[in-house]
């Protein structure tokens, strides 16, 4: 029954990628300029793919909805990028990065892809340094590293709390170079509205010029979707306001399967929700867990007093604090993976220990006081002061913190009006990343021929939970080092095709469909704004398809989203016209897709009767609240086929996951 051929090469795990590369087809340099490739999205995955394909000589068209490719949301990644360089000599290796990632993903990722990722990770750092990315360095002039969750080595490279920014600007510089050389044509403020398929192959897209509203036809021999993740289905998330699922969803509607939609990463350290007009949530980098200790008051009455403003966190004695991660997971402590840390925070808040005075009392402390003292003491020693006063230690410690995390502390202070150098940060989990996405094979090709999907938009490398600092790694690995080979292998059969015309019936039909949808929304004459529906969708998702899920809630969510969809089409109001800059029109098209996706996420979560990674089913936990996987029944990728806007009708296809090289085991961070 399976439609899914993962095309994993034969042979030992460490040789698969090399052997595969050796046997893939090539396109000669003189043929490449005759071949067109479209890249949708210019984040780390898209920019690196467009730059690399342009560099090779293909005729590339790149699209982004923002005003510049440099704005893509990869820019907001803070903490770092993993690579198995073992510069710190603390036992790291390609195998260990591979192993940590598979285990971190709760044994729901494909071994061969993850090993390839670990293999090329080192090259990414080499590449970025060669491009002039200013990573943090030690005094000796060599690169510095830090730790991230789910690992016991220091393999994370970083640039203060702005690593995503620096890596994206590196990829953007490579892309800019190709644009300058005329090998990539950039279409900014353009949004992909549909994929055009001819004879079963991806042959182009319909794009909308967001400034003029004009619909454009662009043809190509291959289409690469690098449009990011779908966290905004929750309305409130750490994603950018414009982040959306539409490009990926359009591909799905055209026949590509959508895998593991229910795997969502809820990041443990974000600034808690403050009010009903809030538009987004802000992440505080996981790197802070290198230095901060997470706690809540042991006594509920202390938590109540804090919420009422009668007590300050600094007044709670050491013995009255519950450092619950250190207590529950001594081996990894504050650096357990994200899903584990998030659930633990929820558990404490559900028990009444939350410290934030918002509607839900949800919040825990991330406290830097001990680190400030210990780093201050070290700094004083380095300065020859072997008996520093408390004040001196704190002064030097704060300086150390500022150098490491300055921008994050400033950001926190601007949002909350509280000084995190003096009082612990208040944090709570928020939607951050989506592991699910368009199903792709080992070559990153979807079930539509010639349609490749990369970065967060695909499902491939992170299983049911992504480890910190691995998204940047995947985006760049795929774009710089994987797609140039696999796309070429596909294009080798296209050298005789010639230019693809855009006046075919297929292009006509796709453009007409887009026009009809736009007109339908503009003439709807409803009474409620797009945001009204988006917020309601978000609430259903957060309450019933969020950090903890159960059968009853998921069934309700599926029905409620179905009703919401009907009401949305009847009653949404979109002002303005189609031939102008119209942000509300952009939003309504995206929210229409998010509603369908949200329902599919609930359907997927309901069918997966186990707990794994970010997918926690309350029915499947042990006596200590840890996740219980069911490898007998669910050791597969669940990939859904689209059968209309009611996602209950979607058909499930399974790709079995075979663990040939790693022994599958219960995930233990204790």
């Amino acid at each position, binding site marked *: 029954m399976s439609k899914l051929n993962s095309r994993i090469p034969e042979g030992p795990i460490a040789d698969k990628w090399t052997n595969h590369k050796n046997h893939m087809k090539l396109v000669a340099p003189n043929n490449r300029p005759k071949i067109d490739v479209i890249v949708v999205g210019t984040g780390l995955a898209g920019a690196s793919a467009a730059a690399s394909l342009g560099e090779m000589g293909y005729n590339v068209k790149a699209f982004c909805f923002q005003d510049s490719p440099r704005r893509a949301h990869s820019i907001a990644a803070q903490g770092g990028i993993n690579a198995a360089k073992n510069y710190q000599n603390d036992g790291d290796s390609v195998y260990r990065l591979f192993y940590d990632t598979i285990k971190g993903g709760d044994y729901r990722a494909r071994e061969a892809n993850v090993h390839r990722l670990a293999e090329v990770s080192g090259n990414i750092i080499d590449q970025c340094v060669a491009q002039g990315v200013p990573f943090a360095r030690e005094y000796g002039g060599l*690169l510095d590293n830090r730790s991230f969750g789910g690992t016991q080595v220091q393999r994370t490279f970083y640039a203060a709390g702005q690593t995503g920014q620096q890596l994206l600007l590196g990829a953007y510089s490579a892309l800019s170079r190709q644009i300058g050389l005329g090998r990539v044509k950039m279409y900014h403020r353009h949004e992909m509205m549909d994929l055009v398929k001819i004879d079963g192959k991806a042959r182009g897209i319909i794009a909308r010029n967001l400034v003029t509203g004009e619909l454009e036809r662009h043809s190509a021999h291959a289409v690469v979707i690098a449009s990011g993740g779908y966290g905004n289905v929750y309305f409130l998330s750490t994603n*950018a306001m414009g982040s959306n699922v539409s490009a990926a969803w359009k591909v799905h509607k055209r026949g590509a399967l959508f895998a593991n939609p229910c795997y969502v990463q809820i990041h443990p350290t974000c600034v808690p929700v403050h009010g009903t007009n809030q538009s*987004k949530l802000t992440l505080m980098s996981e790197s802070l867990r290198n230095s901060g200790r997470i706690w809540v008051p042991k006594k509920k009455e202390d938590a109540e007093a804090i919420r009422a403003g009668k007590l300050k966190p600094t007044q709670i004695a050491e013995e009255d604090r519950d450092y619950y991660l250190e207590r529950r997971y001594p081996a990894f402590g504050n650096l357990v993976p994200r899903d584990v840390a998030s659930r633990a925070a929820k558990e404490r808040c559900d028990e009444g220990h939350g410290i934030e005075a918002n509607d839900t009392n949800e919040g825990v402390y991330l406290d830097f006081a001990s680190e400030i003292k210990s780093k201050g003491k070290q700094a004083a020693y380095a300065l020859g002061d072997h008996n520093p006063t408390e004040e001196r230690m704190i002064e030097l410690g704060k300086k150390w913190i500022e150098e490491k995390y300055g921008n994050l502390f400033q950001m926190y202070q601007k949002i909350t009006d509280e000084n995190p150098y003096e009082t612990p940060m208040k944090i709570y989990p928020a939607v951050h990343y989506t592991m699910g996405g368009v199903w792709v094979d080992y070559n990153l090709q979807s079930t539509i021929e010639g349609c490749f999907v990369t970065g967060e938009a695909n499902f491939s490398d992170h299983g049911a939970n992504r480890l910190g600092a691995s998204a940047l790694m995947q985006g760049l690995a795929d774009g710089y080092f994987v797609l140039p080979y696999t796309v070429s292998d596909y294009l080798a059969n296209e050298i005789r095709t010639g230019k693809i015309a855009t006046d075919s019936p297929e292009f006509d039909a796709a453009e007409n469909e887009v026009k009809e949808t736009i007109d339908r929304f503009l003439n709807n004459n409803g009474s409620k704004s797009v945001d009204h529906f988006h917020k309601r969708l978000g609430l259903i998702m957060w309450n019933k398809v969020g950090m903890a899920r159960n059968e009853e809630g998921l069934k309700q969510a599926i029905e409620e989203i179905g009703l919401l969809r009907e009401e949305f089409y009847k009653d949404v109001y979109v002002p303005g016209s189609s031939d102008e800059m119209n942000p509300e029109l952009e939003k309504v098209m995206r929210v229409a897709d998010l509603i369908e996706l949200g329902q599919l996420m609930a359907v997927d979560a309901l069918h997966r009767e186990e707990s794994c990674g970010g997918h926690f089913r309350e029915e499947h936990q042990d006596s200590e609240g840890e996740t219980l996987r069911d490898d007998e029944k669910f050791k597969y990728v669940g990939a859904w086929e689209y059968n209309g806007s009611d996602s209950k009708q979607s058909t499930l296809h399974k790709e079995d996951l075979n663990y040939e090289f790693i022994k599958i085991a219960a995930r233990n961070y204790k």
Partner: protein
Amino acid sequence: MASKFINITLKIWRQKNSKAKGALETYTLNSVSTDSSFLEMLDQLNEQLINEKQSPIAFDHDCREGICGMCSLYINGRAHGPDSGITTCQLHMRMFKDGDTIYVEPWRSRAFPIIKDLMVDRSAFDRIQQAGGFVSVNTSGRTMDANAIPIPKADADKAFEAAACIGCGACVASCKNGSAMLFVGAKVSQYALLPQGKVEATDRVLNMVRQMDEEGFGNCTNTGACEIECPKGISIENIARMNREFLKGALTKA
């Protein structure tokens, strides 16, 4: 957080498209939480406008955490409003008082034409970058090992500080000459400070400056407004470094 609610009056620049004539329009907005960000306040206003079937205000924004550089806005005569070291999306309504009148305008610069209302076209920055804002290496990953060339921490830190530019354009908008020299100087400096960038430093600065001039940006007269209004605190030291690099290049290339 003790949130308060305030009522405000807004004078906002409305302009249908790049060719239309624009004007300031007056709006009143009540019950704005002081914990809201400035853009959340604009969301609230837009929701009100949509409910009244009026046309919402177009403005650029995306990440809403001060890093993508997409948001702009001249607020009460200052780029990114009355706070320092932040972008508009990080500006919070606690900076304003009940009863305040707030003026909101787009970036004002010839090189940044208005698209609609508060949105401007900053693609000139992209074209400057395309003229030379890169190191000409291919993307094979087959370069030397990342640790092959040690870089003094001080240089790496300075390069990073310059590279922290988010390309928002506040420097241009704040400059009485509409100069882009802080933006260009930061990019030139980032590469000039690193051994990887030194190889083609001369061509880079000449090409980027040429493009900058072609785009219609003004010259620098050392007023320093750009540095004060830069949300990332990029230093005008970078302009001085660019000038040195440019002079060196102009002399050796001529």
